[in-house]
């Protein structure tokens, strides 16, 4: 069994409407819980460093049993999260992963492939906050930066960082599939996310850029408050929702029945049940239950 391992959860940006930072989704569970479950058995001790309030006590009780959770000191932006957190862990720390605490934009499918690609190759997952996050499935190979004595890790597109045995190493991402894009695809904002979704066929880039707002059980179960999409009408937006969150099928009726059990509001004023209602650039589509009794 190797030594101590740690996951550092960096702050990230909060979503609009006060959507709280949530751990990354990863199929049926979030990435943090999945990583803990996979890595914990091979470590002598596991530590999670998280900003105050990023992980609720209930979440820790359910998914981080046997893991010491410590507050992460207030941090500067960028890759300092890794450095600050790693400094607290000491040189005997085996492997460290750094994750963004929020990310309403990532999709389960991408992360699934990424994780599968990563685990056989490395002791831990390293994704530094502030660097470009990897969207594409990729295999990480070890590399070394010589002369790394500085306090700040260098940042660069397409590279990820791993803290290993008191030394920083970087991982050069290579595409998993031959012929695929070689550059890392950034996901730092809604527009980039929409572009990625369109690239992978989740929505049609020719359609207006809009945002789907989720509330209630859908938001709780998907962990997503705002979903930036391309869609030219309401029905298209829902079809994309189902593809991006296949687990949401359980909480959604058939598309043809949506109008009976849900209501749609475009930009918060009008209400409709018409799935063919057109959407325009910049629209916010609010999806809520038709049961509004109180």
């Amino acid at each position, binding site marked *: 069994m190797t030594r101590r391992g740690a996951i550092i959860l960096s702050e990230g940006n909060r979503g609009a*409407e*006060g*959507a*709280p930072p949530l751990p990354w989704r990863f199929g049926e569970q979030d990435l943090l819980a999945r990583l803990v479950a996979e890595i914990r058995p091979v470590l002598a001790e596991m530590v999670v460093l998280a900003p105050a309030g990023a992980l*609720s006590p*209930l*979440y820790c009780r359910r998914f981080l049993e046997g893991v010491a959770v410590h507050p992460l000191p207030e941090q500067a932006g960028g890759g300092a999260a890794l450095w600050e957190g790693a400094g607290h862990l000491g040189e005997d720390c085996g492997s460290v992963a750094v994750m963004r605490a929020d990310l309403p934009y990532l999709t389960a499918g991408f992360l699934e492939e990424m994780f599968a690609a990563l685990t056989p190759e490395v002791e831990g997952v390293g994704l530094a906050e502030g660097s470009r996050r990897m969207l594409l499935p990729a295999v990480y190979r070890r590399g070394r930066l010589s002369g790394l004595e500085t306090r700040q890790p260098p940042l660069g597109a397409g590279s990820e960082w791993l803290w290993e045995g008191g030394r920083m190493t970087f991982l050069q991402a290579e595409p998993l599939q031959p012929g695929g894009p070689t550059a890392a695809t950034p996901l730092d904002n809604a527009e980039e996310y929409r572009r990625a979704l369109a690239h992978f066929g989740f929505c049609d880039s020719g359609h207006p850029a809009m945002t789907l*707002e989720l*509330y*209630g*059980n859908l*938001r*709780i179960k998907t962990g997503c*408050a705002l979903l930036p999409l391309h869609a030219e009408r309401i029905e298209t937006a829902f079809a994309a929702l189902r593809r991006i969150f296949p687990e949401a099928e359980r*909480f959604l*009726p058939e598309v043809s*029945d949506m109008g*009976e*059990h849900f*209501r*749609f*509001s475009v930009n*918060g*004023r*009008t*209400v*409709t*049940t*018409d799935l063919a209602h057109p959407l325009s650039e910049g629209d916010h589509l*609010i999806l*809520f*239950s*038709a*049961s*509004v*009794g*109180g």
Partner: protein
Amino acid sequence: MHGYHASYRLIDLADGSCREVPLEPAVLQNYIGGVGLGVWLLLKESRGNYDALAPEAPLVFAFAPLVGSALNTSAKAAVLSKSPLTHRLNDAMLSSGFALAGKASGADAMVVKGACREWSTLFVEPSGTTIRATPELEGLSAAETETRLHEEWGEEWNVISIGPAGENGIPFALMSHDGRHAGRGGTGTVMGAKKLKAVAVKGGRPTTVADSSALAEIQARLQKNSLGAATEKYRTTGTLGNLLVFNRLNILPTLNFRGKRTEEAQGLSAEHLFREKKVHRATCADCMIGCEKRVTGPDGKPVRMEYENIFALGSLLGIWDADVVLEASQLCDRLGLDTITMGGTLAFAMECVERGLLDLPDLRFGNGAILLDAIRKTAAREDYGELLALGSRALAQRVGGGSEAFAAQVKGLEMPGYHPARLQTLGLGFAVGSRGADHNKSGAYDLDLSGRVDRFRLDEERIAEMVEIENQAAIIDSLILCKFVRRALTDFYGDSVEMLRAITGFDFDQEGLRTAAEKIHHLKKIFNQRQGWRMEEDTLPARFFAGGEGADAEGIDPAEFAAARKSYYDYRGWDARGELRSDARLLQRLDLA
């Protein structure tokens, strides 16, 4: 007779007598049970314009044919009286075991009159009634009262009781059973005026069913639909799920109905509570929906929370701390206070303070630290609590200075968590409601959010549908079924007739049910007219009309409102002033002759 006992108990607390009074089949067919039967009994057992708290004021507990049948979500009873808060009809609903036991105690209703000499408990069972002096229960909360009565008399008794607020005559005190309430309009105050601390009922004489196999088929269908998409929201987040989306749609009332959508709403939302707190689902007896959510409070104890609590004690007061709202809600439950009226009155008082009309500097929006103190003092009538105990309408009359314009109430009943200027059909529903501002009796929020009407306008074309929704609400409250299951009914009148026929064997039909709804509304009107109702009461405070001081930019157009209200009266068969001329022929038609 199937489904009914064909009688009600008339109980006099003064002399301890209990008489079984027969109920004619025609009355049962005309009014079904629950609210329908209850308002008929209230009219029959009262005279003219009377004092809501006088000993002779009737307090009615009405059961219904579906209660105690195999049909789920039917464990409810109607509680009716004249409200000490509004001085108009008060018809509340109460859930769970008390309704089942009450129905099985051997009568279709209980009418309680008179008053005890000291704090007492009324025991009701198939063999009869007993009144026992229970002064030792004075000062206890409803939950404590239930526990003590169970310890002394056994758990087979289902108890409804009042807390200190009801004992102190606060006009918006409630009565509670197993943590559920007949919450609004001062039901607990009426009990308190009778020095009736509790009513304990025991079953043992259930009614029979006319066609068990037909009922079993209906039950299987209802059960299947009750677990589908039609009730998904109530089963998962419950009504707590309303808050964040109402905020997004600008329906959530904040800061005494003045504020707009705010990021702070997140702190009280279901989305936040489910993440940060332990939330357990709970059900009423015989219910498979489980809309109740019990949220663990700061003291580690579960608190039943629903949308109206987090609105009235949270957003309406500009308080966004979930722990504060949980504690306040718990305190209201313990003292026996209606949270909507408590919150509405506090919000009104806070605005009065802001405007310099009241000198209570700590009573300001967003000041959660004062909330518990204010609630305690209200229940005890201490200090400024004596003012808050008036309710917002009476407090506005005391304060003056034009404050009636922003006391958010109708007929004295404070508004629930739906902004009437942004859901204008519901706004009209509040105005014309016999009970006051009651979203449950109206149900017009469904129409406003249906996509079929403009929620920021009022037109006459929508009135027919508004009346239909009100009628269905009255039928549901008379059958009795939980309103949260209504979307599980594929054909409202068809399904209702099927249920009634299977249980009672009566030849109910759809037209008969529609007529019953019409008659029930006539009865409510007659009762209110007897208590002095005038058309001028069927309105909303000036704040909600366009052009009023502090009014919304999206306020209600007064001309549209007047026209829509007149159209409502037409549909109801009332004259242009909303009055129903109750001549001899009508009274006979309504079985009141």
